[in-house]
């Protein structure tokens, strides 16, 4: 009873609706402002259809305006990386050396779309490949690259065929290759396939895979812009980021920056999957409220909005958000960061109340365990432990204190690994504990009720130890059992 009183009062204290600073409402993007007009494959994906859609139009004039002009235009547009990290793209491309020290530069386009929930790049690859190729030329030219390698994941067999045909067409038409588009700049584009590894979506692991090794990430520094593919300056960038560049060049950066809030500019492909009535991939304005995105484009949650349990807003690597946050949050990088989640790849995974949320997060933990490359101990061992502990918690065969132990474990993985897969494995579990702790505790209670002998065997629940977090622990003694609740 005391526990429920505490819960209710803390709910009143902390149940605030956050209002994000914005000058207007976002959403309701018009078709004439959409970049990917062949998203559903209505028209010809290849050169004829692409030229009709306006691709490869006056590309020579864009190139003749010069490299610095192109980079400044990208900076002015406010484009942020669409591959999950959201790093400002203009800034990233400007890191490449302006004068070569003898080594050629390379542009590598990351089409290893393996993040669970994400299926946007395959739409670009199979329905609008020429936007990608033209973008590769412009971005590669602006960073003084010799060639672009497009790394497509091995499972995208159909998409590879389409893209290869598009590349051959572009070569035949003189748009790439020697004297690309008649501008005097030589630029080659090559396709390379992966073979089934999520870790190869990480930029240094991708470079390793391109070099023919197993995809184990490198330590950074040195960053790829200094020493990347074959030891040469390289930039690894996502398909969507590169594919929107030609349209930005043609329509002007201020057009792109007019969408979304400040610092979160542009349009984005959202992939809405899970328990919605109309799962689909749509292109929408950034900073659109999550509720509007789902109700307008995905047909709403099945069973109505109140049947919502939680949403993972940016692909499996970001923490889950419960319904009360989903009511008001905006879909952009900064707003979701404020709510302790992230936009990631904008792959919206919707869970309704029929879901066993612990099972869903457990399946994600299994995914990360399978995909861990095994180089560094926190990830290799930690992901295994996450799976083991979550498996027990799915049954309920655990203690309350082990929830905190699990959270502590995720903090030991996060930030202590060579690459971000460790963070990506830790965050979903942190989100589960942060927002669905009650669910886990109920499961534990149910199991202990069914198996009372367990409780007597475990009558001394372990206390947290060796914890940096021990300082801000709030201990509540409910007579008999010492329950350690983390301060929210």
């Amino acid at each position, binding site marked *: 009873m005391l526990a429920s009183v505490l819960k209710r009062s803390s709910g009143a204290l902390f149940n605030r609706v956050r209002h994000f600073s914005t000058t207007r409402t976002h959403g309701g993007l018009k078709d004439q402002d*959409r970049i990917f*007009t062949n*998203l*559903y*494959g209505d028209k010809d994906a290849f050169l004829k259809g692409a030229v*009709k859609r*306006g691709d490869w*139009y006056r590309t020579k*004039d864009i190139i003749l*305006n010069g490299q610095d002009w192109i980079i*400044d235009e990208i900076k002015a547009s406010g484009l942020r990386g669409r591959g999950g990290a959201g790093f400002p793209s203009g800034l990233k491309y400007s890191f490449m050396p302006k004068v070569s020290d003898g080594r050629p530069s390379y542009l590598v386009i990351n089409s290893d779309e*393996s*993040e*669970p929930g*994400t*299926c946007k790049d395959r739409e670009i690859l199979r329905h609008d490949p020429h936007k990608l190729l033209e973008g590769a030329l412009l971005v590669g030219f602006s960073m003084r690259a010799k060639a672009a390698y497009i790394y497509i994941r*091995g*499972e995208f*067999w*159909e998409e590879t065929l389409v893209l290869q045909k598009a590349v051959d067409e572009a070569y035949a038409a003189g748009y790439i290759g020697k004297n690309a588009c008649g501008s005097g700049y030589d630029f080659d584009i*090559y*396709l390379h*396939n992966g*073979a*089934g*590894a999520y870790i190869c979506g990480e930029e240094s692991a991708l470079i390793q895979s391109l*070099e*023919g*090794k197993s*995809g184990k990430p490198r330590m950074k520094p040195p960053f790829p812009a200094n020493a990347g593919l074959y030891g040469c300056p390289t930039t690894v960038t996502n398909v969507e980021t590169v594919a929107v560049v030609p*349209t930005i060049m*043609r*329509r*002007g950066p201020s057009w792109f920056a007019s969408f979304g809030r400040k610092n979160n500019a542009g349009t984005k492909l959202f*992939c*809405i*999957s*899970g328990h919605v009535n*109309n*799962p*689909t*991939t*749509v*292109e*929408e304005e950034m900073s659109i409220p999550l509720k509007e995105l789902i109700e*307008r484009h*995905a047909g709403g949650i099945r069973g109505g909005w109140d049947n919502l349990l939680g949403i*993972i807003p940016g692909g*499996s690597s970001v923490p889950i958000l419960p319904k009360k946050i989903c009511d008001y949050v905006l879909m952009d990088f900064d707003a979701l960061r404020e709510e302790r989640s992230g936009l990631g790849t904008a*792959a919206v*995974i919707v869970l309704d109340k029929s879901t066993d949320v612990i099972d*869903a997060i457990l*399946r994600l933990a299994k995914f990360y365990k*399978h995909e861990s*490359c095994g180089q560094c101990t926190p990830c290799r061992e930690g992901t295994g432990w996450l*799976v083991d502990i979550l*498996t027990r918690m799915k*049954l309920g*065969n655990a203690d309350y204190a082990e929830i905190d132990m699990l959270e502590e474990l995720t903090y030991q993985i996060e930030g202590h690994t060579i690459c971000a897969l460790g963070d990506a494995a830790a965050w979903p579990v942190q989100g589960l504990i942060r927002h669905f702790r009650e669910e886990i505790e109920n499961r534990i209670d149910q199991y202990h009720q069914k198996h009372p*002998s367990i409780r007597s065997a475990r009558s001394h629940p372990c206390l947290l130890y060796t914890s940096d977090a021990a300082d801000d622990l709030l201990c509540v003694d409910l007579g008999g059992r010492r329950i350690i609740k983390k301060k929210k």
Partner: protein
Amino acid sequence: INAEYMGKPMFRSIAKAFLGPRSLRVMPRSQIGRYFSGSVYVNHRDTEDNNDHLPFEFTQENYSEIDKLLKKYPSNYKKSAVIPVLFLAQKQNGNFLTLSAMRKVAKVLEIPEIDVFEVASFYSMFNRTKVGKYHLQVCATTPCMLCGAYDVMGAAEKHLGIKAGETTADGLFTIQEVECLGACVNAPMIQINGEHVYEDLTPESMVALIEKLRKGEPVKNGPQNNRRNSEGPQGRTTLKELQEETKIERDFAKAKQDWQAAKEAAAAAAKAKAAEKK
């Protein structure tokens, strides 16, 4: 006390005693025997169909393919071609990558054999044990799981009489649970032989698909219902009126002039500020 935990080490010893490597897979402690990445064992185990006494040689067409592939990479980095060439070898050998094939790849690319073994055991699409003619790779990561991927897999398992990770006795079908295949809005979905994908499955359409494949009838790729690519099943909400032709005009020369002028103005302002500070 914890039945699941107690069972595992017991299960493992029983399995090891009775069963060989090809049938029931003995999983590391937290991976239940549903999926294996190409092969349970990282290292090679000799079997009748996979040993050093069964030589492998590329066909002439594949050799010309390899020459084309090598042109994509710098001439001193032939190692970059290891994944595509391994795929060529696997495809030629009926979706089965053998030890001699891997040794051949190492020879063709002039790299140490261990480099090829590393790559072949790291990536999950290389089948280092034999699979059936139709390798049904069922995606079961959370977005597909939420939409019933395990029901689809269960229907396939029940219909074929095998569990995930096993091959049917006639060597036609292998079911494998794989990680996210990147078609999440069309969940649940499968991929066959790492090539075509079949999306928007239900347990019934999965069984129908299997039967069509068994009879050798043609099958439709993509969504197995009347859905168009990633457009929503209830219809699309965007791109309703498509224009025939678009050409966007911009005065690039003027844009460059404006940019140059702005840069010079900024440089002048910075100079003035620096002079002021002095």
